[in-house]
């Protein structure tokens, strides 16, 4: 059973996207990655609306004070095992909004992050590359575990 589950997870990871205060640039590029030109669905990746169905949390934006609790709540609602991808320089380190009074700066200040995709914004190709790297990481874990 667990074997079947992990096989399914590697073959078809479901993604949930949450903007924690970014400028929208990264979000649009993430959506663009789903559209015909780039088409992440060929890797079995599906964008999901509900955190309870998702395996991967894709975060864009520097975490703002208001949004932090929501982010944690969404993370807690996701079933184990779960992974976090930080998309864009904002989510990686908080720049260019570093030192703004309302910003924590970087998703890793509040959540453990598995893959960082820098760029402002990263191109859809880079986002796909990052997610594929995460899939490989999951594969490695599954074969060891």
């Amino acid at each position, binding site marked *: 059973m667990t074997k079947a589950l992990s096989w399914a997870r590697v073959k078809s990871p479901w993604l949930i996207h949450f903007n924690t205060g970014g400028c929208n640039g990264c979000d*649009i590029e993430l959506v663009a990655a789903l559209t015909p030109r780039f088409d992440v669905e060929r890797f079995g990746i599906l964008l999901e609306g509900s955190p309870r169905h998702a395996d991967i949390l894709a975060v864009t*934006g520097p975490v703002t004070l208001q949004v932090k609790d929501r982010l944690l709540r969404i993370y807690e609602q996701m079933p184990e095992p779960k992974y976090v991808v930080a998309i864009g320089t904002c989510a990686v380190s908080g720049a260019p909004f570093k030192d703004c*009074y*309302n910003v924590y700066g970087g998703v890793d200040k509040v959540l453990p992050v598995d893959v960082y995709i820098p760029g402002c914004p990263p191109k859809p190709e880079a986002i796909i590359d990052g997610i594929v790297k995460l899939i490989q990481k999951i594969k490695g874990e599954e074969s060891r575990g």
Partner: protein
Amino acid sequence: MIKVPFGPQHPALKEPENFTFEIDGDIVVAVKPRIGYNHRGIEKAFEQRTYIQNLYLAERICGICSDAHTTCYTQAVESLLGVEAPPRARYIRVIVAELERIHSHSLWLGIAAHEIGFDTLFFYYWRDREVVMDLLESISGNRVHYAMNTIGGVRRDISPEKVSMIKKGLDFLEERMKRYIEMMKTDQTVLKRTEGVGVLKRRDAIDLCAVGPTLRASGVKNDVRADDPYAAYDEIPFNVVTHDGGDVLSRILVRCEEILESIEITRYALDHMPEGMTRVRVPMAVPPGETVSRVEAPRGELIHYAKSNGTARPERYKVRSPTLGNIPALCKMLIGCHVADIPIILAGIDPCFACMDRMTFIDLRNGDEWVWTMQELRRRYRND
């Protein structure tokens, strides 16, 4: 009466924002928007950075209308400095702004198609949008933050080879767009979901200070490009597109036709671009003074206000983005609609919360409001 929360994490919203709907049966009777999830404190950050650094910050206010924000910012600083961008730079600004409008509107059309459950159309729009994205990338080197504007002009020129490439791309887009307009006007799926939905009457639109395509879809002819021309718009002939329906269908048609208009403007600008420099040298010191600058962003009128005290950093900076102007109108449209229509009406104003969010201090016990200085804010939130 039931209260339904909507967001901040919701599949219909790409950005965190919260709305509370009061619902009677299937009809919305009251709406309470709660903005602020996306507030980063950009205006204060403006005051901490130098004028050159702020260029990059202005760009990152919004990832969809990044060029509109930098245009507005550079115009404000240029007017403080008393310099003017050279003619060629002003034409290049127009070209990039219009290409950005095409990309932003096609993006929105895709989202709108998605909200009415027409995903095939969504993919068509976004596939064609990649053509504009390629043009923008080849001009500027980036797909989202173009970094084209600088104080005193633009940073990159458009070469003759690029001109012919852009024209080819525009021809393709024009043909596609004409087909889509035909389709939007006749397709039953689209008509059933958008005709007569989310109506905003002309009077209400004016009273509630709606802006941009939302206002123009209610039959009001208002466009900063025509009313208060900036860059090279005073030298370029174009029409302000309006529709009288006031519903979501009109908003769709206004944006579709604006894309055609933008294609024409870009063509004209490419043909009539004067030769010459693309930027002028500007003095480093910004004299004291204050100024307001306006730009027609893809979503409507964008206002920047700058106050300088003669130092290397602005003393006060203020951004009024178009979405904020549209929120009261949005609440009006939502009242009386069906629950199932909420996503498309919400999406109908083309909301961009990233540029809009702001905050205020309120003491919940007695309702007092006040203003804090930067030091107080930092002490409170960062413990330093």
